[in-house]
């Protein structure tokens, strides 16, 4: 059995287990065991990957498994990982694990909830391991569909509206992606011969420029919608604010990363020539995302909205860095995905926990929580500091790599855009500290809060898992960075051949 | 080879029966009459089958068999349709087709 297929198999088995169980309390236990196994498995995968690289394996992708699935269309079930996918898999398993514990208190339709949640995770894992465009798309759809149910059923506020909006926008995006993928497929054999869906095979040939000009924007925008590219980001604030805690975590933490990863793996990797020509348009859009998201976050009143806009800003930075088309910036983009995934999951977990105590998410109605729930408040401060890019946390590593890389671009336009993007670090500080000051510090505003209880054990598991990884990456970024750097070599050499600096 | 009635007579008869059936189907409001119109249409098709078989491929029997199938299906269809009509009557206390429009937007 290929180790990568286990990443899809374990969630499926977990779902089967949950279906068979009668006792509602055991559902959570089975789910957490399954996802715990998954976490261990990703640790094992990282270990195997790093040791294989150390042993001198220079193949572009490792652990490749290729099974013909649909012969006449040349669709394969093909899996394989490089450093980037390994990192993303690690992120996903951490966030899912933390998400299970964050939804420990869920009482309503518990079984169905966990089934949908893990189904979503299955899709995400499958997406990251696939190297066949069609399989990848399939898993992508698998991840989007349960989202509708999760928000529509277990959400809060205008949940039907948000769920519908989110699903429709993402479906629209996946239509673009499908067109893009098919376009790539039908142009994958410009000199005749078998057309392919395999990413590795396609990356070796050059797709005709005419096709690239059409399909690069389609694919990039398609994945960009998921990565909250301005102006297609509006599903994100509504979706996040209506979604239940674990779903927000998974959504902002992982699902939005599908966008960044897809934009990198499909749009940039397969069509670097068009990317190089058209990048400037998207650089302008992403720069707008970065600054605009941050400015919007300043005046929001709902904790989840603040975070959603902050995600727009941070994910904008991911796409921004990918478009810079050099090794350092792309490396930064991947680290930023992981870092943002972890800290935004932490944020949403904490918001959910605070909400379950105070029953409001409006910051003006709360105050002085530091005194009554110190553990959660300290975690919130840590998440905030990580988000504003403080050294010692992962956010700093990611942002600095991005800025340093982007600024090495020989073109003045790119550097000016970088400077504009850098201003976001100040704006981020403003809204993060504003929330911390209003929400946590100062005197307690409500005597009813005196009786709030601090974190339960499962909440601690959830937050401590996330924090420890944030701090770990923040203190020792070199291993992650070098793991990703190596995997960027193929695309970088393609770009260098295109444009020798 | 055939010296009797020309084929075209059968076809005209079938066409008249068919359009009489369609007309009945469109204009009648009573479900039973509609069902009868459907029978007319089916039987016009039967006539066509039989006539073509006889005139074009006299050595083969597919047309006859097919019309037998149609008769059998029509019989069972009539049974099912009448059952449905009875249920509709119980539900709506009418068999006027215009009053049965629950399946709309």
């Amino acid at each position, binding site marked *: 059995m290929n180790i990568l297929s286990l990443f899809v198999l374990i969630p499926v088995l977990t779902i089967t287990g949950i279906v068979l169980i009668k006792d509602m309390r055991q559902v959570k236990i089975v789910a957490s065991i399954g996802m715990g196994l998954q976490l261990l498995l990703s640790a094992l995968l990282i270990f195997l990957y790093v040791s294989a690289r150390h042993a001198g394996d220079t193949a572009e992708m490792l652990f490749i498994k290729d099974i013909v699935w649909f012969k006449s269309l040349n669709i394969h079930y093909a899996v394989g990982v490089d450093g980037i996918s390994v990192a993303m898999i690690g992120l996903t398993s951490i966030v899912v694990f933390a998400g299970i514990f964050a939804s420990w208190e869920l009482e309503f339709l518990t079984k169905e909830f966990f089934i949908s949640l893990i189904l979503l995770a299955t899709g995400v894992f499958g997406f990251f391991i696939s190297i066949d465009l069609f399989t990848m798309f399939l898993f992508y759809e698998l991840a989007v569909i349960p989202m509708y149910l999760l928000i529509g059923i277990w959400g809060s506020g205008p949940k039907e509206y948000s769920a519908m909006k989110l699903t429709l926008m993402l479906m629209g995006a996946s239509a673009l992606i499908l067109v893009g993928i098919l376009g790539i497929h039908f142009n994958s054999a410009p000199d005749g011969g078998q057309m392919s869906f395999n990413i590795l095979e396609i990356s070796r040939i050059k797709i005709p420029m005419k096709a690239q000009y059409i399909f690069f924007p389609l694919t990039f925008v398609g994945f960009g919608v998921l990565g909250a590219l301005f102006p297609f980001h509006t599903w994100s604030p509504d979706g996040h604010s209506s979604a239940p805690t674990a779903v927000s975590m998974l959504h902002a933490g992982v699902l939005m990363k599908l966008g960044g990863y897809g934009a990198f793996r499909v749009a940039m990797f397969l069509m670097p020539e068009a990317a190089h020509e058209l990048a400037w348009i998207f650089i302008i859009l992403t720069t707008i995302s970065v600054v605009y998201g941050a400015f919007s976050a300043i005046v929001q009143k709902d904790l989840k909205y603040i975070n959603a806009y902050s995600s727009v800003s941070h994910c904008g930075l991911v796409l921004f860095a990918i478009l810079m088309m050099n*090794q350092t910036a792309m490396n930064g983009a991947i680290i930023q995905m992981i870092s943002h995934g972890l800290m935004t999951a932490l944020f949403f977990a904490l918001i959910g926990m605070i909400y379950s105590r105070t029953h409001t998410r409006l910051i003006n109605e709360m105050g002085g929580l530091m005194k009554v729930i110190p553990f959660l408040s300290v975690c919130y401060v840590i998440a905030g500091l990580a988000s504003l890019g403080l050294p010692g946390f992962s956010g700093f590593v990611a942002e*600095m790599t991005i800025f340093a890389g982007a600024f090495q671009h020989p073109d003045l336009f790119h550097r000016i855009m970088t400077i504009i993007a850098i201003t976001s*670090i100040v704006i981020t*500080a403003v809204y993060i500290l504003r929330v911390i000051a209003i929400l946590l*510090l100062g005197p307690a505003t409500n005597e009813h809060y005196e009786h709030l209880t601090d974190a339960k054990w499962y909440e601690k598991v959830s937050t401590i898992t996330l924090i420890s990884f944030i701090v770990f990456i923040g203190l020792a970024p*070199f291993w992650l*960075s070098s793991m990703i750097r190596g995997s960027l070599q193929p695309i970088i050499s393609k770009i260098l051949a295109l444009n020798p600096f | 080879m055939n010296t009797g009635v020309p084929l075209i007579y059968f076809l005209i008869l079938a066409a008249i029966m068919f359009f009489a059936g369609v007309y009945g*189907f*469109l204009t009648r409001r009573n479900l039973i009459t509609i069902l009868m119109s459907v029978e007319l249409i089916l039987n016009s098709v039967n006539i066509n089958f039989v006539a073509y078989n006889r005139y074009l491929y006299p050595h083969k029997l597919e047309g006859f068999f097919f019309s037998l199938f149609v008769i059998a299906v029509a019989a069972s269809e009539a049974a099912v349709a009448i059952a449905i009509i009875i249920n509709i009557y119980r539900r709506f206390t009418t068999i006027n087709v215009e009053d049965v429009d629950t*399946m709309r937007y």
Partner: protein
Amino acid sequence: MVTFTYTVWILLIPFLMFILLGLAGHKLKPKLSGLLGTSGLAVITALSYITAYLYFFQTEKIDGAFQKIIAYNATWLQLTDDLHIDIGVLIDPISVMMLIVITTVSFMVHIYSLGYMKGEKGFERYYAFLSLFSFSMLGLVLSTNIFEMYIFWELVGISSYLLIGFYYQKPSAVKASKKAFIVTRFADMGFLIGILILSFNTKTLDFITLTDPAGPAIAQGSGISFMGLSVMTWSMIFVYMGGVGKSAMFPFHIWLPDAMEGPTPVSALIHAATMVVAGVYLVARMFPIYALAAPAALDVVAYVGAFSSLFAAVIACTQTDIKRVLAYSTISQIGYMMLALGVSGYGGHEGLGYMASMFHLFTHAMFKALLFLGAGAIIHAVHSNYMNDMGGLRKYLPITHITFLIACLTISGIPPFSGFFSKDEILAAAFSHNKILFAIEYAVAGITAFYMFRLYFNIFWGEDTRYEHTPHEAPVTMTIPLIVLAIGAAVSGIIPFNKLVTSDSKAFESEIEWGIAVPSVLIGLLGIGIAYIFYGKKSSLPDRLAATFKYTYKWAYNKFYIDEIYLFITKKIIFRYISEPVAWFDRHIVDGTMNAIATVTQAVSFRIRGFQSGQLQKYVYVFISGAILLAVIFIYLWH
């Protein structure tokens, strides 16, 4: 050859202490946490003094210059092939000098806090933050490359934030901490941009390569120009922006007075002696680039420093909160240091200003920490920050009184105290470079003496205010640091900085220039005299004077309304005219477009749903018409 590898522990010990106290502090007894923190700092203080001794007296010089020694260096993050962030320890004259300053003051503050913070809630948290601060500040000065410095630069920022907001239930403290962080963060953005421009043009982050006067970095950077200035000048101006923020120079000075909301020992350590001089240290660290490749940026440094020193000194004369007076005095004194760097040249006697700046940094750390700790003792005794609530305290607080007096004399530049020596060098350097700046600093020397003694007379002389509780001298843990620092402030003037800490690390000869020293002492004495006349006895003179210059006084009292301007920019412009429109735009235009698409789709489907009438016969009618139509098409029109 002496090895300095052990200096890694200077960074590790406070870091580990922070982790220990931060994670397990609440389980320990408060007193134990305090003692742990203090003893950790005692160890690194000892290590620092050993390092200083070994470096200045045991390490061989090459060509008469102290060598820059990399004691430890490890790649932390590889950025590009050329650029990498290292975490390491760089030993050279200024970093060793800063080690002494930081550990001494920090150690004193740790001891002092044992008494001052006794019984406060969150005692262990306080010590954890202090350890974090010590770690980051030491890391900042020991950095081997500019990005490492930026990392620690941010970390001191956050420790400052945490410590200013230590009393987190006090809204004013929360506000002040937020303000401090955001203002310095804004400045740090400039620093970051400066670093990026610098690294783009020189392809290195390493201090030794960057600041090598004959090295490639300086040669490369000065060639390329952008908008009339060389890129080196641009990058150095941006880097200096970071320094301006951290050192609270005009126009980013607004956070420092508010930062006095933090516990007083913190003000002494962070907002007087160490963190706020990081900007000076930064310029000193990059000094060869400023002097050789970006002289225009160096002029900016000089003028910003001079203006800030005058500006802050004027404000200091009108404030009544004693900690705020000291805060403005800090701004003013740092202005001095900046000015000294700005008027300095590179190498030999040309580098007098550089040496003077470092010298003043050293003496200032001693006497300003002393002033703040003294202020802390006073506040501890009378439970108020306002000098109107004080008076005649010299009877009650004898030790505090003497040490405070020494500090006031030192800052006023009265011999034989250390401030005299360092200030004299600065004035001499300014005199030989720029007469206007010299004149400004000359005036500031007088104003400084005036406002310091205004403070002194108001607190310790004058009428005995009726106190609710009789003020009593501080406990011994608080007085010992006062005495130690007083000795330091008094005698550190004899340290031969011209032999130890110079712009090119080579010793040069310098003497006290009496032609400048004597008038400066006289103007200091004049300031003290005026202060005595005004405040030594009860007198209506100050009030009458304030009434005569009503508007000037009002402007100075309100800090020239700089805070209001900032508030206007942030609240009105950024919040109301940027953020709210952006948020509105997002909700109504961008999101509205999406909703509009949905609405249009819905409207269209309402229109066409009439086809689904539920009328069976209509369906059949359409069906049959369609079938006939198709039949007609196929039969007659297809050919």
